[in-house]
């Protein structure tokens, strides 16, 4: 019985102690202080992990953003290249249009070069205009304001142009200054020659050789400049060379004179 009372008392003291412990501010502060280093450490660790996670997250997003910017930059670069190409093309077409305006009485066509001679011995090009575009055999082809050649084969959609530098190219021409009629024949990419030039004909070095305007050929289109004139006594004709300096690989667009309107 005595023991039972003692247990009840001990229980009451314990409950009272607990109530006192929880109601007393000092004990709470001590407990709070005791928890501080643990909480603080936990917080620091959490902050560290959070920062680390954020760092990796931001790095990934930065890498992604960088890749996207790179892609955009490449696209813009390609766009700039395309624009530059169009600008050059535009300038060239404007130049061609200016040239076309000088010959209102002729039916002129513009074509693009789509093929070149497969060897170094024949000089011709293939253009993307044929009989469907009104191109005919013998039409005169001009590039950069100079005579480039003559159509010699016509397909439905494409044609071949024998260049002034080809040995098979022959055309009647005249000298710009002296108005002498001559025959021009191609020789190579650097020079051509005038054939059947009689000794009494007035041909001078530096004189421009141009088309004579006979038939459907327009007049005044330059072919080249007289480079050398020589004559051996007793010969029937003079030897006259004409400088051309023609590189067919640089030509992109050509103008075709397909008859008078």
């Amino acid at each position, binding site marked *: 019985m005595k023991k039972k009372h003692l247990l009840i008392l001990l229980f009451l003291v314990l409950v009272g102690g607990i109530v006192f412990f929880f109601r007393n501010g000092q004990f709470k502060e001590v407990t709070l202080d005791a928890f501080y280093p643990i909480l603080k450490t936990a917080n620091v660790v959490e902050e560290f992990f959070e920062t680390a996670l954020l760092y990796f997250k931001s790095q990934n997003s930065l890498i992604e953003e960088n890749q996207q910017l790179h892609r955009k930059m490449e696209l813009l670069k390609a766009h700039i290249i395309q624009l530059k190409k169009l600008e050059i093309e535009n300038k060239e077409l404007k130049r061609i249009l200016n040239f076309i305006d000088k010959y209102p009485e002729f039916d002129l066509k513009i074509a693009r070069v*789509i*093929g*070149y*001679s*497969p*060897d*170094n*011995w*024949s000089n*011709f090009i*293939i253009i993307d205009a044929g009989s469907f575009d009104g191109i005919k055999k013998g039409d005169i082809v001009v590039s950069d304001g100079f005579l480039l050649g003559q159509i*010699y*084969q016509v397909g439905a959609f494409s044609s*071949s142009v*024998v260049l002034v530098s*080809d*040995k*098979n190219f022959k055309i009647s021409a005249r000298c710009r200054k002296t108005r002498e009629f001559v025959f021009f*024949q191609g*020789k*190579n*990419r*650097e020079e051509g*020659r005038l054939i059947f030039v009689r000794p009494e004909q007035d041909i001078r070095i530096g004189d421009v050789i141009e088309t004579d305007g006979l038939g459907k050929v327009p007049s005044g289109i330059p072919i080249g400049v007289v480079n050398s004139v020589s004559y051996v006594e007793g010969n029937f004709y003079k030897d006259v060379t004409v400088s051309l300096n023609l*590189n*067919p*690989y640089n030509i992109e667009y050509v103008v075709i004179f397909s008859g008078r309107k």
Partner: protein
Amino acid sequence: MKTYLFAFFILVFQMYVAKFFSIWGIVPDFLTIFIVILTLKNTVLNSLKIAVFISVLQDLISPISFPINTITKGFIVLFVSSVKQRFYYSSGTVKFFLILIVTTVDVCFKGFITYVSTGVMDFMYIYPVSILINFLTFYVVSIFYEIR
């Protein structure tokens, strides 16, 4: 059939893409080089058939009204096939002389025919340069072929 298609592809390549390999406006003759390699690796009859096929196409688009390429390329096939039995053609010197002779014959024959048809005899730097370019191209192509 595959070889014929490949030969046709080489012709188109020669007509449009070869300009990117041009030096002073002179382009390497990939067709001749192709025919030389083809003859070195094939029988005369097969090589001749492909050479004639490709040369006829080349002559059809050329302004010269004479089958100049058919004759020269046919000759090249016969020449190379007769040479290949006698020499070890992997040697650089033999390669050089082979392409030198082939290109020289090609040049001289074309020059002669052009002279007969147009009356213009023209020897300029283009001839030796084209021989050199052909040799270099042939050498590079054959090295690739041997590596493969």
